[in-house]
């Protein structure tokens, strides 16, 4: 036994087993109501051939066991509520608590999606209100609240472009996407049946006007750009780009994942953008919840309004609201029911909590914070592009790689300092990218502590690179055998136990 094991004997609750390991026959975690009706034997109601075998592997646990299990598990997570979570492109900003309260009101939570419109006027009014707010924020005339996330928004957007081209009787084959784009952009375009042509970014990290001009042929349905792009750099030739694309009959799609950088400062509708999705789980504070849910409303120019997915919310002359599927040129639906309503409640709560002035401040302070980080870190870490940063900054491991230290090492070591690492190895055009987005909800002293940690790591990289290869040391688990996980995947408890 080493000294450390003596001082730190195994605490069972830090080594929590799986639900299945914890199961004990005969326990239960709920009280069920009585059926309250005369019961027939199940086998009289259902032919035995339709019945399943015993669910013997479902765990058996009391409520006490379950609450403890998930409380213990939760403590293995770092979270926004504990500190800075500077994942670039992810806009990990504070999730207001009032959102969780409003989203749970019984009149929202217990509404069935197929209730007659007259019984859900409150819901429809709410959807109308958030659409109006997003119309105001984007400067585009309609917004579909249908898509379940950003990627589905992209997909819907591209399908609308396709529908508009179809309506013009045009078949176009390609979609242009810069090499700095997020992976969902090409994936969505391809899911919609297009082929992707990649545009190489220029030395400023932005789209090259000449390159756009060259690539934008009449075979091209449109261009998907990200504004500001994934380097946090504003595509400042946006008006020229739009002119070129429109000139060839194409459409400009804007990936709005980075809307936090300019919400309230400028409207996409004035930039020549035809369609844009908004990640409500980024700019508009729907919590990420470990991966979702989110929502990806899509704002569109007039030219695409006929092709919006269904349903949409419409207001009748007498001020009542309806859920409408009456849109003959619609692309149809990409999901069941209308919208991720719970997300809409949260985001509208946030929007009204900020107000118009507050939203402009969101952009302002998120950009201020990113530039402050950039300034303080750019000596010790290589700055990939000199172009002005908006809400995020992309550094790289170029300086550290001389000592054999990689971005991965830096990221893991940050954990020992109590920080979640930035996004790493994205965008792909920066080798060893460290993509840092503080958001406006990061306080200066938190940024300073983060900088201190980054600078300490930069020193460690010079003085003790091996330490960094071993990091993290102070986390619930240390570096994982990820290759092994992929080589012989164990994807369920049964796969190992049975």
């Amino acid at each position, binding site marked *: 036994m080493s000294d450390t094991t003596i001082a730190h004997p195994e605490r069972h609750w830090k080594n929590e087993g799986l639900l299945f390991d914890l199961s004990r026959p005969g326990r239960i975690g709920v009280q069920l109501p009585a059926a309250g009706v005369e019961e027939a034997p199940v086998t009289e109601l259902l032919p035995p051939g339709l019945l399943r075998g015993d669910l013997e592997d479902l765990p058996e646990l009391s409520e006490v066991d379950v609450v403890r299990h998930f409380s213990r598990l939760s403590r293995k997570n770092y*979270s926004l509520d504990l500190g800075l979570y500077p994942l670039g492109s992810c806009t990990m900003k504070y999730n207001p608590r009032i959102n969780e309260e409003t989203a749970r009101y019984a009149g929202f939570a217990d509404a069935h999606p197929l209730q007659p419109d007259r019984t859900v006027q409150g819901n429809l009014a709410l959807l109308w209100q958030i659409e109006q707010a997003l119309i105001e924020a984007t400067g585009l005339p309609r917004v579909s609240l249908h898509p379940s996330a950003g990627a589905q928004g992209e997909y819907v957007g591209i399908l609308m472009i396709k529908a508009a081209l179809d309506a013009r009787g045009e078949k176009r084959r390609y979609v242009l996407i810069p090499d700095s784009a997020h992976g969902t952009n090409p994936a969505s375009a391809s899911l919609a049946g297009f082929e992707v042509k990649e545009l190489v970014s220029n030395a400023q990290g932005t789209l090259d006007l000449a390159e756009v001009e060259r690539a934008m042929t009449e075979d091209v349905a449109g261009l998907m750009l990200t504004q500001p792009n994934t380097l946090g750099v504003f595509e400042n030739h946006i008006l020229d780009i739009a002119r070129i694309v429109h000139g060839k009959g194409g459409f400009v799609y804007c990936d709005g994942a980075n809307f936090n950088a300019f919400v309230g400062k400028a409207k996409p509708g004035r930039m020549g953008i035809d369609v844009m999705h908004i990640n409500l789980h980024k700019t508009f504070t729907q919590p990420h919840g470990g991966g979702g849910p989110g929502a990806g409303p899509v704002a569109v120019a007039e030219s695409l309004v006929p092709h919006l997915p269904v349903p949409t919310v419409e207001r009748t002359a007498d001020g009542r609201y309806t859920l409408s599927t009456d849109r003959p040129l619609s692309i149809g639906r990409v999901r069941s029911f209308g919208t991720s309503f719970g997300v809409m409640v949260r985001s509208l709560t946030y929007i009204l909590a900020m107000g118009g002035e507050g939203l402009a401040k969101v952009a302002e302070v998120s950009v201020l914070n990113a530039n402050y980080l950039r300034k303080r870190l750019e000596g010790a870490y290589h700055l990939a592009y000199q172009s002005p940063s908006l809400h995020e900054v992309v550094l790289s491991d170029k300086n550290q790689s001389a000592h054999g230290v990689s971005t991965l090492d830096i990221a893991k070591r940050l954990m020992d300092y109590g920080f979640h690492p930035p996004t790493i190895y994205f965008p792909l055009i920066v080798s060893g990218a460290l993509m840092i987005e503080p958001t406006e909800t990061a306080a200066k002293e938190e940024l300073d502590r983060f900088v201190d940690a980054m600078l300490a790591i930069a020193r460690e990289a010079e003085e003790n690179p091996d330490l960094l290869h071993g990091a993290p040391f102070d986390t619930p*688990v240390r570096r994982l055998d990820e290759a092994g996980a992929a080589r012989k995947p164990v994807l369920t408890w049964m796969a190992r136990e049975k």
Partner: protein
Amino acid sequence: MHKAHRYIPLGDTDRQEMLDAIGVSSTDQLFASLPEEILLDHPLAIAGPLSDQELRQHFHQLQAANRVAGRDVASFLGAGAYRHDVPAAVDHLIQRGEFLTVYTPYQPEMSQGTLQAIFEFQSLIAQLTGLPVANASMYEGASAFAEAVLMAARLVKKRHKVVVSRAIHPHYRQTLATHIANLDLEIVEVGFDAFGATDAAALAAAVDGDTVCVAVQSPNYFGVIEPWTAAADAARAHGAISIGVVTEALSLALLRSPGEAGIDIACGDARSFGLPLGYGGPYLGFFAARDEAKRAMPGRLVGETVDVDGKRAWVLTLSTREQHIRREKATSNICTNVALCALAATIYLALHGRRGLVRLAEINLQRCASLAGRLASAGLSRRFASPFFNEVALRSSKSVAGLLESFEGAGILAGVPLGPDYPELADSFLVAVTESNPPEELDAFLRAASSLA
């Protein structure tokens, strides 16, 4: 002095210190890369900032303008979204900041809580569907279904026919139609028989060597429990993929699972496990398949591994399928999924466990059977003489729309009309009964039916 905002921790001196450090004199300078002509010179016309209490008032009024189950009406609406009781512990746990405010667990050392819970979710879905591999979630049932068809098309290349039962939820079929509209695939719909089940003969006849996949739902849109085997057998006979759709996941506690019956891909919605109806979303798409298919699956997968000290741990794996690595060649464009909903379902399933879940399903079955049985004498007979779980199609001699409106007047949302999606069933509507409909509601339904139907 700038107006402080509760979500923006910028103190009076912070701004100046940061501007000084950056070497600019105002934040406006930081936006210099935006062309002047697009900059706004006035704030957005959006009300606020509102206080927490003002927000409560605003949203309280909105929700009060709805008439909802439990509070204002008794509801028997189902049709793909079933009301269920949620134990209090579920919502308590998913609101812990450590679950709520975390990102996708790309950094496993700091995310073991989320990863382990997803692994548990995958294991539970695999058990319920009877298939060995399940992913970390899809948005909701309909897009999960569309993804299942696309996956089938990846597994069985160069074929074109997507054979789909007309008894699958209309939204699911419409979603599929949108997804394949621009692809080299074609939907062949197979009708239903007099029992409300997919026409087995027509199904067998529709499947051939050009068939990508065969998809059925059980219980189907009419509440009818279908044997999975017709689809599984027909598909297998022609080297196609069979897809089983489940919109009421609770049925899996009692009914033969797709996997047991030889189905290749099971997908659908598991919102029934611990999530509110919430007017349509977010819901919980699930996706399970045979082991051979795991590298073709959409969505995230968590796998078990060890850390450098040999400690058991979990990690996102087989990521080379995904968009952030594979881009246009990815198995799907999905990125954000519905992890927190999957967590809720995991907690819900853990609480109910082996005995609770089965008993809960029985209560659903018994109550639905009881109501359907008693309604016959009140003029509402079952549309199809087939076994059902917690939902049943009823036929009325009166106009369905008028009848439902009368029920509504009596404080009952009695069901979802079938006519809009199935003109030939314009005389029928769907009635779902769950443990959330206490016996008194059944009695009230019966009383209302006796006077209205």
